C-alpha cells in the first residue's frame, strides 16, 4: 500500500504547486490526478496573474480591489495574505522558467484587467495558464525522485480514521481498473471547480466538483456555494472563453445599436469593471432587446480597435479561436459574445493554510473557499489563488506530517467502493442514461442559477436537482469493462455534481439579497445589515444539506457602495 507524508489529489496549478512546496519542505509526496497533469483545467486560464510588482503599485491597493471586487464578502485577512505574497510568487515562477512577457526595458510587462485600479497582470501572451502549468510540470519531471506521480487515477473516497483525521484515499487506476488504498499523513484536495454542473460552461469536461463532493461527504463544510461567476465574454457560437485580456488590451463591448453600453453601469472603468457588473450589463442589454445576432442573444466584442501587431503578439489564441471555431477574423470584425458560466467562488471552507474542517485534510485552488473571492472573483486572481494557497497548503501539510507517525488504514473502504462501482456496472437498463441526467442538470442550473435569479426559478431548480438525485441512483451505463471505463467514472462524477448543485441551489435560495455574482430580481439590493456573512453547507446525519453561517473577516476596509 503506497504511503506518503503528503498526498495531493489533482494536478492543476494548485496541486502541482503544493507538491513542489511539500517536496521542498522535505516531505515524501505523491500527486494523483484523473487526467495527465497538463490536461488539468488550469491550462485554459488565458489572461494572466495579478501581483503588485510595479514599484508604483502596492499590495494594499491590490487587496482593496479584491475586497471591492468580492462585494465585501471576501475575508480580508486571507486577501491580505494572497496579495502581499503575490510578488514573491511571481518571482518564483519567473525563476523556474515561466516565459512572462517583458516590456521594452526587459522587466516583466503588466497588462490591464477588470476591477483593478492599475496595470498589475503579468502574462504570457494569452496562454498564461498553459505556460505556468507546463512549466510546473517541467519541475515535477525534475522532481521525479521526490514526487511520485499517479497520472490517470480517479479518487473515489477519502479515508477518515477513528480519531477523525483524514488518513488517505481510495482510488482507481483508470488504465487498469485496479483499486488501491493510499495512506497519507496529510491529504490536499486540488481538484478544481464544478463548472460541468452548468451547460454551457467555459469549463472542461473534467470539472465535476469531485473534491468538493468528497470533502462534503466526509463531513467538511462548503462555503459561498451560491456565488457562481458568469464570465462576460464567452463566444455565442460555442461557449468558449474569450480572455478578459482582450478588454485589458482595449477591446470594446457594444450592443445592437452600436452603443458602448457599459457607460450606464460603469462610467469610469467601462469594459474593465468587475465581471459580475459587466455580465449583468450584458444580460440587461440582451433581456431588453438590444442584443445582436439572429436570436438577439449576444453583444459584440470589438477587438478591431486594438493595434493588430499587439493582437497577434498578445492575443494570438483568441485570433485562432475566432477563426477556427466561429469563422471570424477578430482583427477585422467584432465577435458575438454573452455571459457564460466560468468559475465557482465557493468550495471547501479552509483557513489561510488550506486546512479544512477535517484534521489532516487540506484544500487549495478552485475546490477551496478561503474565501479570497467572496461574491465575485477578479480576473487574474484565480491563478494567484491556486499558487499562493497551493504552496501554503503544501508547506503546512509537510510540517504537520514531519511530526507524526504514518497512520494505519484498512482496505474496508476500498471494498465498499469496489462494490459500489460493480453495482453501477451491473445496473439494468431500466432507468435513465447518465448522460441524459447530466444534460438536464446542466441546462437547469444554467436556467435557474445564472446571472439573474429569483425565488420562483431557484425553487424549480431545487426540485429538478432533487429529482435528478433520485434518478441518478438507478442510472445505467454501457461499458462493462475495466480498462479505461470512462462510463462508470462518469456515473461517479454525476454524483459529485449533484451534491455540489444541491449546495449551490440551497445557498442561493437562502441568501435574500443581491451581492456579487448572486443577483436576485426579487431582492435587488445588497443588505449588509442582514447578510454580511458567509453561508455554509454541510451534510447532516440523514444525508441532507444543512445550512449554516460563518463570519466575514474585516480588517481594514469597511463595506462601502460599489461603483466602477
Amino acid at each position: 500500500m503506497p504511503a506518503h507524508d503528503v498526498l495531493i489529489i489533482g494536478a492543476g496549478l494548485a496541486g502541482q504547486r503544493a507538491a513542489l512546496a511539500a517536496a521542498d519542505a522535505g516531505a515524501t509526496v505523491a500527486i494523483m490526478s484523473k487526467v495527465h497533469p497538463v490536461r488539468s483545467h488550469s491550462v485554459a486560464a488565458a489572461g494572466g496573474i495579478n501581483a503588485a510588482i510595479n514599484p508604483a503599485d502596492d499590495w494594499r491597493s491590490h487587496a482593496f480591489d479584491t475586497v471591492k471586487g468580492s462585494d465585501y464578502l471576501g475575508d480580508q485577512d486571507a486577501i491580505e495574505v494572497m496579495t502581499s505574497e503575490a510578488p514573491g510568487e511571481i518571482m518564483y515562477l519567473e525563476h523556474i522558467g515561466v516565459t512572462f512577457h517583458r516590456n521594452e526595458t526587459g522587466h516583466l510587462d503588466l497588462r490591464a484587467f477588470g476591477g483593478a485600479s492599475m496595470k498589475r497582470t503579468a502574462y504570457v501572451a494569452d496562454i498564461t495558464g498553459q505556460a505556468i502549468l507546463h512549466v510546473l510540470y517541467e519541475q515535477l519531471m525534475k522532481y521525479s525522485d521526490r514526487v511520485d506521480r499517479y497520472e490517470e487515477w480517479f479518487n473515489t473516497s477519502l479515508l477518515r480514521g477513528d480519531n477523525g483525521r483524514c488518513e488517505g484515499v481510495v482510488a482507481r487506476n483508470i488504465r487498469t481498473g485496479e483499486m488501491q488504498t493510499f495512506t497519507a499523513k496529510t491529504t490536499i484536495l486540488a481538484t478544481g471547480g464544478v463548472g460541468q454542473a452548468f451547460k454551457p460552461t467555459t469549463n472542461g469536461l473534467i470539472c465535476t466538483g469531485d473534491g468538493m463532493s468528497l470533502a462534503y461527504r466526509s463531513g467538511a463544510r462548503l462555503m459561498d456555494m451560491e456565488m457562481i461567476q458568469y464570465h462576460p465574454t464567452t463566444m455565442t457560437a460555442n461557449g468558449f472563453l474569450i480572455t478578459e485580456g482582450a478588454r485589458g488590451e482595449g477591446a470594446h463591448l457594444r450592443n445592437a445599436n452600436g452603443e458602448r453600453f457599459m457607460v450606464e453601469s460603469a462610467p469610469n472603468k467601462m469594459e474593465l469593471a468587475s465581471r459580475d457588473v459587466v455580465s449583468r450589463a450584458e444580460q440587461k442589454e440582451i433581456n431588453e432587446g438590444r442584443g445582436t445576432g439572429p436570436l438577439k442573444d449576444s453583444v459584440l466584442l470589438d477587438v478591431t480597435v486594438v493595434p493588430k501587431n499587439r493582437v497577434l503578439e498578445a492575443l494570438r489564441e483568441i485570433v485562432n479561436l475566432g477563426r477556427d471555431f466561429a469563422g471570424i477574423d477578430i482583427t477585422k470584425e467584432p465577435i458575438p459574445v454573452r455571459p457564460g458560466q466560468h468559475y465557482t467562488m465557493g468550495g471547501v471552507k479552509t483557513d489561510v493554510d488550506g486546512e479544512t474542517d477535517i484534521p489532516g485534510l487540506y484544500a487549495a485552488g478552485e475546490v477551496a473557499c478561503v474565501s479570497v473571492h467572496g461574491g465575485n472573483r477578479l480576473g487574474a486572481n484565480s491563478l494567484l489563488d491556486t499558487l499562493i494557497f497551493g504552496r501554503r497548503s503544501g508547506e503546512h501539510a509537510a510540517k504537520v506530517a514531519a511530526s507524526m507517525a504514518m497512520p494505519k488504514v484498512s482496505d474496508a473502504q476500498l471494498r465498499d467502493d469496489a462494490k459500489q462501482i460493480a453495482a453501477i456496472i451491473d445496473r439494468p437498463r431500466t432507468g435513465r442514461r447518465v448522460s441524459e441526467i447530466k444534460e438536464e442538470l446542466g441546462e437547469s442550473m444554467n436556467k435557474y442559477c445564472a446571472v439573474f435569479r429569483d425565488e420562483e426559478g431557484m425553487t424549480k431548480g431545487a426540485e429538478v436537482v432533487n429529482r435528478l438525485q433520485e434518478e441518478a441512483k438507478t442510472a445505467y451505463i454501457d461499458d462493462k469493462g475495466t480498462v479505461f471505463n470512462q462510463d462508470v467514472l462518469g456515473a461517479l462524477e454525476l454524483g459529485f455534481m449533484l451534491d455540489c448543485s444541491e449546495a449551490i441551489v440551497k445557498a442561493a435560495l437562502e441568501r435574500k439579497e443581491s451581492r456579487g455574482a448572486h443577483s436576485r430580481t426579487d431582492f435587488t439590493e445588497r443588505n449588509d445589515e442582514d447578510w454580511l456573512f458567509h453561508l455554509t453547507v454541510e451534510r447532516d446525519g440523514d444525508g441532507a444539506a444543512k445550512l449554516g453561517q460563518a463570519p466575514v473577516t474585516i480588517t481594514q476596509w469597511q463595506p462601502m457602495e460599489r461603483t466602477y
Partner: protein
Amino acid sequence: MSTIENTDATEAKPEGLQEFTLRLRRYDPESGQAPYFEEFQIELEPHRSVLDGILQAKAKEDGSIGVRCSCRAAICGSCGTRINDKPGLACHTHLDEALKRSKDGKITIEPLGNMPVIKDLIVDMDAVHWKKQARVTPWLLPKEPLPEREHIVPRESMVDVTQSMACIQCGACVSDCLSMEIDPLFVGPAALAKAYRFVGDPRDSRHAERLSNLAEDPHGIYACTHCFKCIEACPKGVAPMSQIMRLRRIASQDHHINDRNNGERHEMAIVNSVKKYGTLNEAKMVPDSYGGPLAPAAAKELVASLPVITKALLRRKVTPKTALFHHKNPDQAQIKRIYQEVQGREQRLELNLYITQPDEDPAELAAHEAHVAEAAAHDAAEQAERAATNQTEAGA
C-alpha cells in the same frame, strides 16, 4: 421578471442540423479481438467539431467509446486523433471539413500513430511521447545565483519562445513523424520543440551542452528528414520542424558544433553545392558530407552507399556525365546576390508566428491603423468629457 429570461435564447432549437457518419476504430484490450471499425450516425451543425460528434455517439449510443478529452477548445491537448488519415485534435476539426477530406462520405477516426493503443482512441503517450520529453532535460537550468527579482531579458526573446511554449503536448506531430516511423529512437518533433524552448531562452545557462547533446545523438536534431509533416499536423502553430532547424542553425553557426553524425557537414555540403552550382550536385553530396573525398569516413560511406548510387545510375537520376561535369545554373550573379543577402544579415531572420505577421495588403493595414487611432481618439475625448462631468458634479 422571471429568471427564465437569462437563457431564453439558448432554448431555441438549433437550425441546420446535418447527419454525419463517424467510422470509429474500436479496440477493446479485454475482448481478445483485433481492432475493428464501427459506424455511428450523429446529427449536429456542420461547424461543430468531430469531438462533439464522438461525444454525441458516446452519450446517446455507446458509453464505452474510449476517448480522452476535456476542454473542447484546443488547449488541453487530450483529444489527439487521426481523422481521415490526418493527425490533429478532434475538437479542432469541424465535421464539414472532415467530410470534405473523406473519400467515402464517412469520417474515419483512428488513434494517433507511432504510439501503442490502449483502448479505442486512447494511446499510451507515456511509452513514447512523455519518454521523449524527458530525454531533452525539459526544465530550465538558470545561471546561479538567481537574481533577486526577475531576470532582465530582451522583450523579443520571450515573445520568440512563446511559439514553442504554445505546444499543448497533444502528440499529433509524433503520430505522423516519418523519421520516427523509421527510427523509433528519434527524439522527435515535440521533444525537440521543447528543447528549443530552453535553447531560445536567454535565462538558460546550458545552451552549448543541450545543443551538442542533441547534435551528437544519432537520433537527435540531424535525424529529422525535413518532411514538414509535423508542421502540417500541429494544431497550435508550433511548427516543430522550424524549431528543429533553428536548433541546427544555432548549433552549427553560433556554437560551431561539428557533430560526429556529420549532420552539420551534410548541411554545409548542400549550402556550398547550391552556392557553387545553383543546384544540388548529388555526386559530391556523400564525399562532402563526410569530410571531403579523401576522408576515411567518406570512403566508408561511399562504399556503403554503392547500392543507392547504382540504383540512381540505373534509373538515370544521375549519369556519369552529370556526376563528373555538374551543370551550373547560368544565372550565377542571382545566386550570389541571394547568398550575399542572407549571409550578410546581422541577425538571422527567423519566422515566428508571434512576431511575424502574415503578408497583408498595405492599404488594408493602413485603414486598420487609422481605425484604431480614431477609436483611441474617440475614447480619449469621451474620457475627458466624463472627467469634466465628474468634476462638475464633485464641485456641485
